């Protein structure tokens, strides 16, 4: 079975602050894979490179070296046009906030990737996706009229409505939510990982990380540990150990 994401020796550096300042390595030699049906959490202290890793995996941030394959396709050498098409058809994003285009209603946001792909919009599928996240009754509302948790759920509905499921990237999806709204979003993300779809979650939330099949502990741009079937206590211990060993 083809991994939905596979990276080999991925490296990323940011330029230094001044002209003569040395560049700053952010990710070093990252090799990982995400299989369909799998939910993978990336944890680590602030500044460890978690979000940068997510953006590199999604092709939102160019890499300096190494390989990133999404659904079997190498994205580091892909043209912008093909990358847009791949993003539209196979990727979904859930950010901490401002997930949605503010001028479009919830229903229009869910259908946006289909519209951008010039595909016929299956309104039944859009409504089903809204129903799956429990927001069928809020489809006509603008994002500004929805709570943070509801906006996150709409973002997930957008992923569910895509006709060719691939990978969901979630960056601190529960960071701005209360406990119950966060739990609802996590359950939806968990259920989004299906036979054809993988989920990558960057989080500080131990409970969120513990819901994943695997947890990658990142420190200074390097994967220091990998946990399988971890509890929140295991995740906390791994993060603390990584901090001490560094």
């Amino acid at each position, binding site marked *: 079975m083809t991994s939905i994401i596979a990276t080999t020796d991925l490296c990323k550096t940011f330029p230094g602050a001044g002209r003569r300042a040395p560049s700053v390595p952010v990710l070093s030699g990252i090799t990982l894979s995400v299989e369909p049906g799998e939910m993978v959490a990336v944890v680590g202290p602030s500044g460890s490179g978690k*979000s*940068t890793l997510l*953006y590199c995996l999604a092709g*939102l*941030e160019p890499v300096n070296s190494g390989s990133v394959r999404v659904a079997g396709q190498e994205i580091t050498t892909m043209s*912008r*046009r093909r990358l*847009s*098409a791949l*993003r*539209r*058809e196979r*990727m979904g*994003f859930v*950010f*901490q*906030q*401002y*997930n*949605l*285009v*503010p*001028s*479009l209603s919830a229903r*229009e946001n869910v259908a*946006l*990737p289909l*519209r*951008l*792909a*010039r595909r016929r919009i299956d309104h039944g599928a859009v409504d089903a996706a809204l129903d799956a996240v429990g927001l069928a009754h809020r489809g006509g509302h*603008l994002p*500004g*009229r929805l709570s943070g948790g509801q906006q996150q759920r709409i973002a997930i509905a*957008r992923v569910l409505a895509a006709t060719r499921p691939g990978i969901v990237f979630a*960056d601190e999806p529960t960071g701005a939510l209360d406990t119950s709204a966060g739990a609802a979003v996590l359950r939806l993300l968990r259920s989004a990982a299906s036979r054809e779809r993988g989920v990558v979650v960057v989080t500080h939330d131990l409970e969120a990380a513990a819901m994943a099949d695997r947890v990658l502990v990142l420190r200074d741009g390097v994967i220091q540990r990998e946990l399988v079937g971890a509890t929140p206590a295991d995740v906390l211990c791994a993060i603390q150990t990584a901090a001490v060993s560094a």
Partner: protein
Amino acid sequence: MIRLILADLARSARVWTGLFVLSAVTGAVGLLGVSLLVSSGHYSGDTRQLSASSGQMVLTFTSISVFVGLAGAANLTVAIQRRSFALWQIVGVRPSLVGLVVLAQLAIIGAAGAATGCLAAAPGLDPFFTWVQGAWTGSERIEPHVGTATWLGTIAVVAGAVFLSGLRGAVRASRVAPIDALREPEPPQRGMGSIRWVVAVGALAGTVALGWRLGDASFEEQVNRGMFLIPALTGFLAALGPILFPLVLRAWTALVPARLASSWFLARHDARYRLSRSTAVIGPLMVGIALAAGFYTGAATFGAAAGAAWTTDPEVVVLLLGGPLVVSAASAAVTVFMASGARDRAAALVQAAGGQRRTVILAAVWEALIHAITATTLGTAVTVTGAIYLARAVRIETPQIAWPAIGVVAVGGAALLLIATVIPALSALRTPLSRVLAES
């Protein structure tokens, strides 16, 4: 409080720069008009009358553009910073202080901009008077007489106009619940304030007074009143902008199907959603079209009634329409520039959803065209209405509508809006997606 005012001015430089530039342009045009009026007092006879009437006309025509342009820009200045004002309240700044700070900022920027504009215009006073003299025949040479009082008066009037234009927005900024502002950074468009209603009623009364029994008046009186009819009607519609412009925009954009292109779909929704910005952009362009076309329509109508072609000296046209058109053009461009800060995120969100860069650029092009077409529709409606009324009043069969003037100003305005909209969109595409999306 002074630290808060200055720090915020520096942080929101793009927004305040726009208002500063517009105040400067208004100050420069205002000084030229006022100098004609003030200098007339030093002469007598025809020279005095020519100078005074020229100054009055420049100021009357320009005041419509200034009212629309400054009102839109000042309101937008406050609307764009709604989120910042909410954050101030969250960190403990009293709501009343928020309003005070915003008003102080408006007054500072208005005064500084007007002073800069006056300073920039000062060296041009002598050449301006020499050039204006070319439009007059048989009058003695006049010199500009501009004293400190004229300078200070012009600066005070422009600063006061900026202050009053932003007053309602500032009061609303201090009353909005912080959490509402954070959740919905773009304020919902709300009807008209009392100042706008007063201006609308005044402009309507002026329109009625100018048009009342115009057909029964002498030809000279018809000319004197008729030439101001379309500008007065323009002022009335411009004052109703917050109600009227969104209606027209929604009505005609609904006729074009959303499936035309995803870029059209995005632009249409954005123009309808960001009504403060749309109103602020449409107003000045509509005024520019209606004033220019109204002038030529009036001239052609009275020329036809007199049975001879009515020639208009280029100097007279530039003298009467130059100021309003410059202020209108500056208002439209500056407004788009001020509001372009939101483009980075909008472009990033569309790209994250799988949109191509081409889609983002095309959406910006559509957006500029939506604003330009709405303004042209309104400006044309005013001109055609005025032309039909004037034609009936002077008893000619065919209304003399100045289509070339409508076309020239509309195309020029559309080109200006395209440049002002597309350049920030291209700039937004240069910002790394990850950085924009990571910012909260």
